[in-house]
C-alpha cells in the first residue's frame, strides 16, 4: 500500500526558509510530501496552528527555526521550543503519537541538512501510518 504522508511545516523567514531555499537553488532532491508555510519567526507558531493542521488532515507537523542564540528576534525560537514541549505533552495525552510533531533548528546555510531532515521526517511519518485525527473529529462532529 502506498501511503504518501501530508506534512505541514512552519519555517522561519530568516534561517530555516532560507535554508530550504538553498536546498532548492542547489537542486537537492528531497521528499515532495512537505507543504511549507513561511512565518517571520518560529516564535510566531501559535499552538493553534499546529492543532488546526492536525485537525485538517496533516499526518505530521514540522517546525523549523534558527539555532539557539541565532534568532533574528533574540528569543523567538526559545518561545517556540517551550511551546513545542507543551504541545508534545498535550497531544500525547490525547492519544496522538508525539513523533508526529517535530522541531528542528535549520540555519540559512544548512540546505543539505534541511533536505535530509525532510527525508527522515517523511520516513518517520510513513512508518507511523496515516493520522486518524481528522477522521475521529469528523466522526463526532
Amino acid at each position, binding site marked *: 500500500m502506498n501511503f504518501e504522508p501530508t506534512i505541514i511545516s512552519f519555517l522561519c523567514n530568516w534561517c530555516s526558509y532560507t535554508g530550504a531555499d538553498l536546498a532548492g537553488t542547489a537542486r537537492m532532491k528531497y521528499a515532495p510530501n512537505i507543504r511549507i508555510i513561511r512565518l517571520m519567526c518560529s516564535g510566531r507558531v501559535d499552538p493553534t496552528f499546529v492543532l*488546526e493542521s492536525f485537525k485538517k488532515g496533516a499526518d505530521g507537523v514540522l517546525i523549523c527555526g534558527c539555532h539557539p542564540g541565532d534568532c533574528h528576534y533574540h528569543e523567538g525560537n526559545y518561545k517556540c*521550543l517551550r511551546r513545542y514541549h*507543551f504541545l508534545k505533552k498535550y497531544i500525547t495525552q490525547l492519544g496522538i503519537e508525539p513523533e508526529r510533531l517535530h522541531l528542528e533548528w535549520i540555519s540559512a546555510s544548512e540546505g543539505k541538512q534541511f533536505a535530509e531532515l525532510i527525508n527522515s521526517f517523511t520516513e518517520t511519518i510513513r512508518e507511523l501510518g496515516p493520522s486518524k485525527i481528522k477522521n475521529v473529529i469528523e466522526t*463526532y462532529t
Partner: protein
Amino acid sequence: MSEEENKPKLKLAVYWGAACGGCCVSVLDVHEKLFDVVANADLVFWPIALDIKYADVEAMPDGYIDLTLFNGAIRNSENKHMAKLLRQKTKVLVAYGSCSYMGGIPGLANLNTKEDIFERIYNETESTINPENIRPQERYEVDEGVLTLPEFYNDVRTLSQTVDVDYYLPGCPPQTERLLEVFTAIVTGLGLPPKGSVIGAAEKSQCDECTRKKTENKLIKKFYRPWEIVDDGETCFLEQGVICMGPATRCGCGNRCIMGNAPCRGCYGPAPDVIDPGAKMMSAVATMIDANDANEIEKIMEDIIDPAGYFYRYSLPASILRRKMR
C-alpha cells in the same frame, strides 16, 4: 386594565443537560428579584423547581417558549432529545453556563471512552463490589413492563454542536447579576447583540480587570499547585508560579476567583475570536518559563502533570482536537 397589564407575559424555560445543578441554582440566586422576573414572565418548564413533565413540553406549539436557558452538556440521548425538543419549542435558545457553551467539566470525559468510564465506575473503584459484572442496560424487561435508560454516549458535545444556539452565556455558574442584565435586555428587547454572540460577559481578558500587582516580564522557574505555596495576596498568580487562566479567559465575572485569592480556572471561556483557549494558554505560559535549555524546560514542565485537564478544564469538547483519539 391598562395596556401594560394586558401585555402578554414572556414564557421562560430552564433546563439541565449533563450538569451539576449549579446553573439552576444560580437562577434561583436572583432571590427576591425573582418577583420581578415572574412579573414579566411565566416559568413554563424548570425541572429543578416545577413539576412540569416532558409530555407537557411536547404538547406546546412550536416557538411557544420565548426564552430557554439550557445548561449542561450533551452526554446522553435524553440530553440530546431535550435539546432538540426545546430548540423546536423556543424562540431564543441560550446556552447557559460553561457546560452548555463549551462542554465544561463533564466534557473532560472526552479524555476517556465510554468503556473506560464504565470500567472505572462499575468495576474498578475502591467502593465497587460487582462480582457479576453488572452494567446498566438501556432496556430491561420486567413483569410490569419495559424499563428504559437513556443511551450514554462515547463523546460529550456542547449544545451548539447539537442544535442551533442563539446566544451563549458563560460561567460556572454564570454570575446572577449578568443573568438579570440579559433577562432585562430580552424583556425590553433593547441591547441584544447579533445571534451567536456571547452575552453576559465582557470583551477583554481577566488580566485586564485584575487588580493584582503585575510586571511585564513574568519569569517562572517552578510551577506550584495552589496548596503548595503561601499566596501573598497581592502579586499576580503567574508571577508566583501558580497557573492562572486569566490571560486566556474572558472577563465579566468580576474576577471572582482571583478576588477570593484563588487563580482563575477559565470558566468564562476564551476571549473573542480565540478558537482554542487551551492553545492560547499553553502559548502564554510557555513564554513565561524562565529556561532556554530543552532539558531544563522539560524539568520545569514536569510540574504540570495534566496540561489537557488544566488548560482545557471547561473547554475540551469545544476545542480544536476535542477528544482523545482512539
